């Protein structure tokens, strides 16, 4: 077995040193009753070439973006990742290292995380960011818990226009905690309903969670929400599932959000059937000690040289155990590195230009579809790179199936998560969709997919 270096002679010599006769003896402490007395029932081992053949076979059964024109978004975005990203994270020193608990031989990881945290602060307009969370949804759940910790209140309002996967995750995380989640309705323009929001905000409200942009691609009035939340003494949590939008939009920090979470997948991570992605989590300096997860801080060594270390570990479960701010241990370190490299490459100008292209392409597509008979756009609010399309006939499934026949993944049907939008689907357009692809989508919709 090529992964196991032991030779027969090694094994014999080692057993001798240990003073036992057989490998069996190593397991003497395991009671016979719980020993497995048969081989595991697993398929026979594959050579490397066979393994790749088998995985290529499985991969070949999937509709990747190489074969389909894809307009799927909804929290996972088909953006281009420069080759640099993957080649750099493929350096063994990065991806085969453990969590940087020994700073002397982990400065590479530590400095990169510090840079990640800094980039997230700059992007979100916040003051402190952690080393990453599992994904945007679980980061959102952690934000809700932090709001509860900070305010010692028990109710959290969640916009119905927040990504359904985020809402479900918040619900699961909070399931058995002493708190209530309440939903805020969606207004006719596709944004969170300000009236319903005001009606539900009260003195027990710890926080309010709003998507920015929201699941329908609409750009929420975060400033107004922050003002309302703050008036009630609640925290405003902005959840950013498409952080590329922040290349153009006012940052949540500028709009007075208290906690900003989201997913960095757009920044260089493949969609990879849903993961691994990377949650980010940013907050105000004053809330630092209430934050979940790891933090890297700057320090100096005995010679006065700059160095980086894990810091404020007293919040974490290794020390605080059941009183920790979170149970998270391994996070998504390498994915944070992806994001860091991606943002280093695009930088100030590039992120803006990339965001502009996304917006322009979505706007162009939106206009194309809006002009088609049989389709309409239910939500009027300004959007970034996604929008909702209504199928007048109501046959969303039929429309999407017809598109599939033309090798187009036209969008995500909304009926499953939003029964009131049974006749709607969510379209996402990125810089990866050429005008020709877009025109083909529109033509396909025009040419009968609507029927």
């Amino acid at each position, binding site marked *: 077995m090529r*992964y196991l270096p032991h030779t027969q002679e090694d094994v014999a010599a080692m057993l001798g*040193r*240990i003073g036992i006769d057989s*490998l069996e003896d*190593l397991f003497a*402490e*395991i*009671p016979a*009753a719980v020993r*497995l007395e048969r*081989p*595991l029932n697993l398929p026979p081992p594959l050579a490397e070439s066979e*393994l790749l053949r088998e*995985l290529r076979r*499985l991969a070949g059964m*999937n509709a990747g973006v*190489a074969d389909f024109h894809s307009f*799927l978004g909804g929290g996972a975005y088909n953006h281009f990742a*420069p080759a*640099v990203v993957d080649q750099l994270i493929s*350096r*063994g020193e*990065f*991806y*085969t290292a*453990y969590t940087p608990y*020994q700073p*002397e031989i982990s*400065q590479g990881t530590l*400095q990169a995380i*510090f840079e990640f945290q800094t980039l997230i602060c700059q992007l979100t307009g916040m003051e402190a960011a952690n080393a990453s969370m*599992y*994904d945007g*949804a679980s980061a959102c759940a952690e934000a809700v818990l932090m709001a509860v910790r900070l305010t010692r209140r028990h109710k959290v309002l969640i916009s119905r226009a927040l990504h359904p996967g985020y809402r479900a*995750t918040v619900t*699961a*995380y909070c399931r*058995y*905690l002493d708190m209530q989640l309440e939903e805020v309705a969606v207004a006719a323009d596709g944004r969170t309903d300000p009236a319903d929001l005001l009606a539900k905000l009260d003195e027990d409200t710890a926080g309010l969670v709003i998507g920015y942009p929201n699941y329908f691609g609409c750009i929420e009035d975060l400033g107004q929400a922050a003002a309302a939340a703050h008036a009630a003494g609640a925290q405003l949590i902005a959840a950013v599932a498409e952080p590329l939008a*922040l290349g*153009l939009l006012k940052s949540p920090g500028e709009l007075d959000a208290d906690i900003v979470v989201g997913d960095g997948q757009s920044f260089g991570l493949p969609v990879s059937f*849903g*993961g*691994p992605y990377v949650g980010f989590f940013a907050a105000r300096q004053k809330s630092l000690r209430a934050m979940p997860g790891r933090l890297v801080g700057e320090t100096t060594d005995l010679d006065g040289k700059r160095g980086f270390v894990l810091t404020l570990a007293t919040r974490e*479960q*290794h020390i605080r*155990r*059941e009183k920790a701010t979170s*149970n998270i*241990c391994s996070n998504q370190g390498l*994915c944070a590195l992806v994001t860091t490299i991606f943002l280093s490459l*695009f*930088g100030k100008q*590039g992120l803006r*230009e990339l965001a*502009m*292209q996304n917006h322009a392409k979505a*706007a162009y597509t939106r206009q194309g579809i809006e002009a088609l008979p049989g389709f309409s756009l239910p939500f009027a609010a300004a959007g*970034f790179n996604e929008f909702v399309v209504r199928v007048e006939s109501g046959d969303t499934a039929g429309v999407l199936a017809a598109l599939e026949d033309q090798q187009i993944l036209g969008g995500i049907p909304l009926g499953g998560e939003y029964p009131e939008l049974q006749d709607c689907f969510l379209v996402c357009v990125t810089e990866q969709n050429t*005008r020709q692809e877009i025109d083909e989508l529109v033509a396909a919709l025009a040419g009968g997919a609507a029927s």
Partner: protein
Amino acid sequence: MRVGTSGLVLNEKLLFEHSDPGRKGYSLPELDVPSSDLPRELCRDEIPGFPELSEVDVVRHFTRLSTWNYGVDSGFYPLGSCTMKYNPKVNETAARLPGLADLHPATPAHLAQGALGLMYLLQEALAEISGFAAVTVQPAAGAQGELAGMLMIRAWHEAQNSSRRKVLIPDTAHGTNPATAALAGYDVVPIASDGVLSMAEVEAHMDDDVAALMVTNPNTLGLFETHIEKICRVVHERGGLVYCDGANLNALMGIARPGDMGIDVMHFNLHKTFSTPHGGGGPGAGPVGVAEHLVPFLPKPVVVKQGDTFRLDDDRPQSIGRLLAFNGNFGIMVRAYAYIRTMGAAGLKRASEMAVLNANYIRACLEDTFDLPFKSRSLHEVVFSDRRLAGGCHTIDLAKRLIDYGYHPPTIYFPLVVKG
């Protein structure tokens, strides 16, 4: 082998310190549609502080940073509790295959049969290895697997109209165990172990307000919990369930199965036992195996097979819900599946045997030199204390000195029951 003089040591600034206004590290196609402006009041000016770098700046920056790190690819990395395996290179190739890496999570199931099939096959393989009735591959890491498990335990109690409030956790447990129990709304009751848990201690604490016991097996001292079957029996008899932290499963593959010991629920760490890279702190994956009675509570969606096709089953009324926006760390599942298919049954067993052999060999070589607080036969790890170290030396000194010799230090100051 000692630290040599052949290598290079390069300084490196922060990436922001390399930035120069006007540099570009990206390329974009010409915009092929009319440009479109968002309403002005929605837009920011620029992102203050964001870097501006050319591609070569970025490549050099991260290349140089990487040389400050030590990885499994650099050499021996004997971290207890972390299972620092070799991370097979072909698995990296596998996870990047087109059709896997570029598959969107919202792709209709009939166009994602390969991916769903892979998840299903991984679930099945993990179930066979662990002896559980079913496995979810959704959780993103061990700690999230723990959360899934504890939420299921609580949901099961609720389904029986039981509202127990306490969870027993041995003092050797990893910090995520109590933190997770708290997140599931439980009060943590620490219990003492003397190397392994004694029946007496478990019986003394196992009352009818105890929802569960969280145990790690082999535990963080590298010792097999020899009374595990009886412990499970007692906990079950008194109305509780047993959660197993499966971080140390690497000692047991093909040797013994937690599901056969009476354990109700256990998480796996694919980034430990199943060779996926630690990535400098993730991403990993923390699938959870459950006994039959907990199946209805699994996080949703679950990958199910119907005839020859696979689909995500969302219609599970008793499910605890979902813990991530999508299907879990699929790229990590690909790697773990590749590992299992490469190793086969005999290979996995051999991996466990060799891990245990190595730990016992190190123990044999060092037990005359260092203090060994717990003396029963070790499994895949061994814990020494610094009590016998001379000259005012402590564990931390030993750890740092190992670095000077070109080795990664072992895990230090954990578990907390061992001094130093």
